[in-house]
Structure formats: structure tokens, C-alpha cells
């Protein structure tokens, strides 16, 4: 016994070999199973509203106006100078829909009291980030288009 054990010490014994192979296979199967389950649980096709959509023509929006679009949850804002930008209406704190308060000139979140100014910067409350700005463009046939898939810097505006 001790002889053979010393002799084989550099190698696996048959039992060790099978134990290693067996638990290795089990580990691989477990990891594979978890990976497959994870993949399964992650939907590949989403039937959610599209990110890119048209929001009408520029002359529909008066100068110095804030227009809330409920379905895509955005504000289309036209400044007095005539340029456009699009703000997300989803609070960066916990995802409530913020409201534009014309009298106060601010955007307020009903859930946890965050407040933003007209360009989306945080002026009060627990919101950690300013409101997102979405990319805006003018199509060749003169319609305004918003792409919620593309975030832009607050400085980016659309001049018409």
C-alpha cells in the first residue's frame, strides 16, 4: 500500500482521477445550467415603444414653451431664442414622472421632492443627476424627430 502510494505520488490514483473528473464535469454542468437559465430569463425581443419617433413640425411649438408628451415621457422645450431641446420626464432619482410648473419655472418630482430647472439641472432634492437630454433632429421633410436611444450633452440644441 505505502509502496504503491509512494510510487504513484506524482500521478493521480484511479479514484482521485475519477473524483476530479466527476466533480469537474458536475461543476461544468452547473455553470452551464446557470448560464442557460440566465440566457433564457433574458428576453431577446421586447415589445416596448420605439425609441425613435416624430413629434410634429417646428412651427407647432410656440416660442418659449414647454410641451409635455405623456406617452414617450419627454418634454419638448422651445426657448425664446427659437431653438429646441428634448428633456426626459423620468426623474433620475427613482423614475417617477416629473411635472412642469409654469408659475415657478421649475420641474418638480412628485415622489421624493426633487426639483430641476428648465434645462434639467438639479436645484433641490435627492436626485443624483440632471434630467437626460435626448437627441433631436430635423428630417428632410421638415419634421422634428426624437431619439430616446441617444443621450446628448445639455449644450446640444437644435436650431431651426
Amino acid at each position: 500500500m505505502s509502496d504503491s502510494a509512494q510510487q504513484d505520488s506524482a500521478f493521480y490514483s484511479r479514484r482521485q482521477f475519477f473524483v476530479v473528473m466527476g466533480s469537474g464535469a458536475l461543476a461544468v454542468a452547473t455553470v452551464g445550467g446557470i448560464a442557460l437559465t440566465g440566457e433564457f430569463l433574458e428576453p431577446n425581443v421586447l415589445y416596448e415603444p420605439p425609441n425613435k419617433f416624430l413629434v410634429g413640425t417646428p412651427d407647432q411649438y410656440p416660442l418659449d414653451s414647454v410641451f409635455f408628451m405623456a406617452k414617450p415621457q419627454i418634454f419638448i422645450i422651445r426657448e425664446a431664442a427659437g431653438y429646441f431641446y428634448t428633456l426626459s420626464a423620468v426623474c433620475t432619482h427613482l423614475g417617477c414622472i416629473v411635472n412642469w410648473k409654469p408659475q415657478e419655472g421649475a420641474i418638480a418630482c412628485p415622489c421624493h421632492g426633487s426639483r430641476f430647472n428648465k434645462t434639467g439641472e438639479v436645484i433641490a432634492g435627492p436626485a443624483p443627476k440632471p434630467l437626460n437630454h435626448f437627441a433631436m433632429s430635423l428630417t428632410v421633410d421638415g419634421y422634428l424627430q426624437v431619439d430616446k436611444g441617444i443621450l446628448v450633452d445639455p449644450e446640444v440644441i437644435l436650431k431651426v
Partner: protein
Amino acid sequence: MKLINKITAGRIWRSIFRTGLPSTNYRRSLVILNNFFLHLHPAKVKKSSIKFTTTFYLGGLSFALFLILTVTGIFLMFYYHPAVPLAYRDMKDLEFVVSNGKLLRNLHRWSAHAMVVTASLHMLRVFFTRAFHPPREFNWVIGVFLLLITLLLSYTGYLLPWDQLAYWGVSVGTNMIKAMPVVGDKIRFLLLGGNITGENALLRFYVLHCVILPLVLSVLVGVHFWRIRKDGGLQAESAGRLSEKTDLILGEKTNPRKDESLVHSNSIRSK
């Protein structure tokens, strides 16, 4: 009466209920030991542990509420479609169309709130009576997870009516997950089955609420009870109030500080 006697004495009846109403202590213990549903109990219990003020029956209340929730929940499932906007219509149906639907929904809702309360109070009771002492440490950990699952059950059920209250309560919660570093977005995506709280989210919450979480809870409750049995039964008189008693089995005083393995509630004495 005669008929009843005849039935209960008959072969079929006795094949189902083996013990019958007991008249001796031996047969009283058989009632417990021979019954599948009761056999988690020991045949005898300490007098102090069935006193109301020892445990306030909070664990038992939580379990009873879980049973009520299971039954009422299953009934509600007969009339509920986890789909938008059907879910909300089913709620209205339960309220105004289905016979006794409103009662059933109320029962389910109030029991859920009550279970959160009793389970939390149960935890506090166990803490303040130091009932988590060895060898019951791990049972306390199981208890903490049971409380968490109770909260999760309550929370996943909250979305199912698909009304404003449900939708925004859940939206706020899932956005909290988003705040988790690195994995937050992924977990939220998997939980909602998408980027928004929509049809997929409702279905996933439904499956979690009706299948996965109750299953996990049942298994853990089983382990929780089994360990109570194995670790010496229900909580006896709380440690602080116990007067000094001798160990009848060993015939000598046990000193908990000398032998750690003997530490349990009754051997920790107030000097």
C-alpha cells in the same frame, strides 16, 4: 349517534384515523406521533412554552397567516389573468361581479399586511428573549431570510392589481435596484423582463408571487420548524426570569460557561 359510532368503529374509518380520541397518555402521544400533520410536534411540551407570554404565539400566527394567504391566494388565481389590461379588469370583477370576491381579496390583502407585522414582531421577540442562542444560531439566520421572503412576497403581490398604487410603488422599488453598482441595471432588466414596468414585469412578478417565493418559503418554514424540534423544542420561559434549577437528568448543576455545548436558554442563569 349510533350511526356515527358505527362509522368511527368501522374498518375504513380506523384505517384512516388510527388513534381515535385518546383516553390515556400513551394514546395521547400516539395522536401526535401517528399523524403526518402533527408529527412535527413532540409528544410532550414544556408547560412554560405554551404560556402566551413566553412567545405571544407570534411564530404560530405568522404560519397561520401563511396558510390563510395560500388558500385565499389560490382562490384568487381562478379569476386572475396576469396580463395588461386584463389584470385590472379582473380586480374590478372580483370587487363587483364575483360572488364574495371582494371578501376574498380583502382577506388576502389584510392577511399579507398582518403577516409582515407578526413575522417582524416574532423576530423582535426572539431577539429580546435571546432565543437565538447556540445551537439555534442558524435557525435565526433562516428566520431572517423568512422575513425577507415575506417582504418580497408582499411586494411582488403589490404589483398584481395593476392599479396606480401598484404600478408606482413597484416602479420606485425597481429603480432602487438600478442604484446598485455594476449589476443593478442587469438585475432590474431580468426582474422586469425588459426596460419598463410592463406586461413582462407583471408576468414575472406573478410567477414569483404565486410559485417561486411560496415554494422557497414553504421549504424554509419546514427547515425552520424541524430545527426548532431538533434543537430542543419551543422556547421555554425566557432566560432572564428563570430561577435556578438543577439539572434533573445529570443530577448536577450545569455551568454554561464551562461547557459551551450545554449553553441553552434554561441554563443561563441570572445570579
